[in-house]
């Protein structure tokens, strides 16, 4: 029997239908070849610095620091990436692999739409055909992103199965892939799924942590005390954490607490009691499931964290206690977003705002000489419909009504 590969502690693996085995062999081969080719990472970094905006800045949040009165707060600005989130890092990296594999079509799932926009963008840039699967619920929450995917030339397919969110979009993408793997690469959007995805996505995202470590040392002359990232699938968290894994730095992943982790409405796989280890979507990790192994509905105000599983690498780091996990509930998220906008002039995505919640809770009790980094994984523009509803903005409502009137509603 072969030695098991793709495991992180007890998590990960590749639970694949036979039809995909050879496709994953090819992908693994190409990924490992690229990873061991020093020219590849140079090509990747060059692409990211001429097409996106790498290195992204590390912004000192002076006003929030003063307001909270504890550690110095820094924000890693993944929102300044082309397409508005860290998702671009992974997607452009996979795009280079697709070119190497000679495939001509890409598919992807998307929750917040950021990964979909990033993939559609990459496809436009590399000249690939592109199909994006997106849960019907998310299509509604993130309509602007759907619009832009289509304008970028992608076909967006609303998934009407299951809970009609991210996990269902992943299933549908797999269903497409098992029919079209010869021509098609599935650009998985987060550090989940069967090996090599969790490792490969983390590898591309590690550019965040590499930069952040260098930047904070330059600015503060020492390592930060803690690093905060929101955790959907776990790619932005893995990205920034990987820069500090071997350092005496506390790493905190913040999950979507939804309406509270004691309710039915959350998406906390590592903080909540109703999650347990299981195998689905091709990998082994903590899932929010019932006793018999049926996946449960999840809830989060942010589409991008509204996911039933979590990176197997993070599950392992959770068990090993290398990463601490916390949950932020919807109301806190809106409040943290509001604070950040008004005091710092930056607009975190609803996903990213989760990381801000916990950072803002913990910063006041740290020393003034300490510093912390929050990973702002994306920008909040895309969330305008959700945020306008959360703030119950009356002018936005009348604007939409008027617009609907023009359209003959």
């Amino acid at each position: 029997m072969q030695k098991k590969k793709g495991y992180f502690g007890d998590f990960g693996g590749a639970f694949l239908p036979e039809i995909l085995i050879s496709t994953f062999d090819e992908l693994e081969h190409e990924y490992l070849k690229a990873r061991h080719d020093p020219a590849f990472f140079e090509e990747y970094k060059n692409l990211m610095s001429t097409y996106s905006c790498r290195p992204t800045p590390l912004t000192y949040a002076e006003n929030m620091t003063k307001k909270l009165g504890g550690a110095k707060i820094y924000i890693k600005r993944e929102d300044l990436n082309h397409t508005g989130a860290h998702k671009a890092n992974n997607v452009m990296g996979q795009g280079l692999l697709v070119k190497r594999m000679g495939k001509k079509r890409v598919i992807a799932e998307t929750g917040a739409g950021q990964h979909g926009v990033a993939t559609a963008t990459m496809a436009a840039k590399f000249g690939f055909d592109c199909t994006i699967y997106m849960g019907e619920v998310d299509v509604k929450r993130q309509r602007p992103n759907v619009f832009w995917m289509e304008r970028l030339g992608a076909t967006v397919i609303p998934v009407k199965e299951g809970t009609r969110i991210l996990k269902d979009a992943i299933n549908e993408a797999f269903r497409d892939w098992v029919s079209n793997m010869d021509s098609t690469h599935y650009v998985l959007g987060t550090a989940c799924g069967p090996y090599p995805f969790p490792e490969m996505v983390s590898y591309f995202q590690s550019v965040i942590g590499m930069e952040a470590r260098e930047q904070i040392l330059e600015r503060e002359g020492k390592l930060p005390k803690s690093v905060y990232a929101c955790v959907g699938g776990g790619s932005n968290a893995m990205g920034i954490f990987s820069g500090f894994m071997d350092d005496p730095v506390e790493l905190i992943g913040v999950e979507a607490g939804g309406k509270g982790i004691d309710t039915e409405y959350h998406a906390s796989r590592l903080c909540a009691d109703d999650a347990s280890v299981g195998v689905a979507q091709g990998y082994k990790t903590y899932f929010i499931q019932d006793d018999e192994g049926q996946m449960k509905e999840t809830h989060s105000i942010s589409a991008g964290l509204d996911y039933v599983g979590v990176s197997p690498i993070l599950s392992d780091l959770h068990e090993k206690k290398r990463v601490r996990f916390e949950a932020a509930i919807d109301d806190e998220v809106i409040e943290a977003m509001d604070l950040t906008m008004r005091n710092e002039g930056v607009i975190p995505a609803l996903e990213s705002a989760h990381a801000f919640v916990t950072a803002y809770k913990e910063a006041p009790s740290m020393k003034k000489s300490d510093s912390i980094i929050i990973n702002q994984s994306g920008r909040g523009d895309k969330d305008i419909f959700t945020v306008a509803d959360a703030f119950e903005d009356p002018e936005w409502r009348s604007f939409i009504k008027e617009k609907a009137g023009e359209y003959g509603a």
Partner: protein
Amino acid sequence: MLKKYIEEKRKEKDILLMTHIVIGYPDYESSFKIVEAMVEAGVDIMELQIPFSEPLADGPVILKANQKSLELGTTVKKSIEFGREMAKKYDIPFLYMSYYNILYKYGVTDFAKEMDASGLKGAIVPDLPPEEGDEYITSMKNLNLSPIYIYSPNTTDDRMKYISSFANGFIYCVARKGVTGSDTEFSDDITTYLERCRNATDLPLAVGFGVKDKKDIDFLKGKADIAVIGSETIRLVESVGVSAIKPFIEGLR
């Protein structure tokens, strides 16, 4: 044992039929009637799918059946009761089909024991390649149950042999890429593919994915041992009703 059963039956028939149901679809009562009709129509083996919320390898028809069944309250416990009853009542081999998480959460060894105690003969777990299946393979083997493995058109000859070394009962050869429920064009490519399968294993070969009428089954005669009818009977139940099952299956051979 499963292998032996198939070999015996094959002496009587030039091809065997395996059919499939999703337990609890269109409802729990109908499942009984569908199995009854299938057995009466002379089906040789049956797959009983325990519904799962994420049936990754299934196409729209079976996917919907899984969801509907779960909505109606089908549980794993109830599915196992159902399996036990069927195995007791009818004298053909029954297999479970499900996804690995169902076994994993039940406890893989316990699940195998339960299967054995219930009189089922084996299982098909499409998202559990042999590389991930240590406990499963061991516990199935210990109880003389058949872990059914899958070949696909892009499985290499070497890998077919590798897979065969873990398999038991028969090999399930999927006729084409894709998920369940779409049409397959049965052509020379499939003949060549099935020859490759034949050369890689001593186990009987079942062919499924897109087998839907007498023409398809005639094509498979002499090339495979078992024809698998999957989504087609579900479609039939949906469009006509349970009563259509028996005449349909009788017309296949």
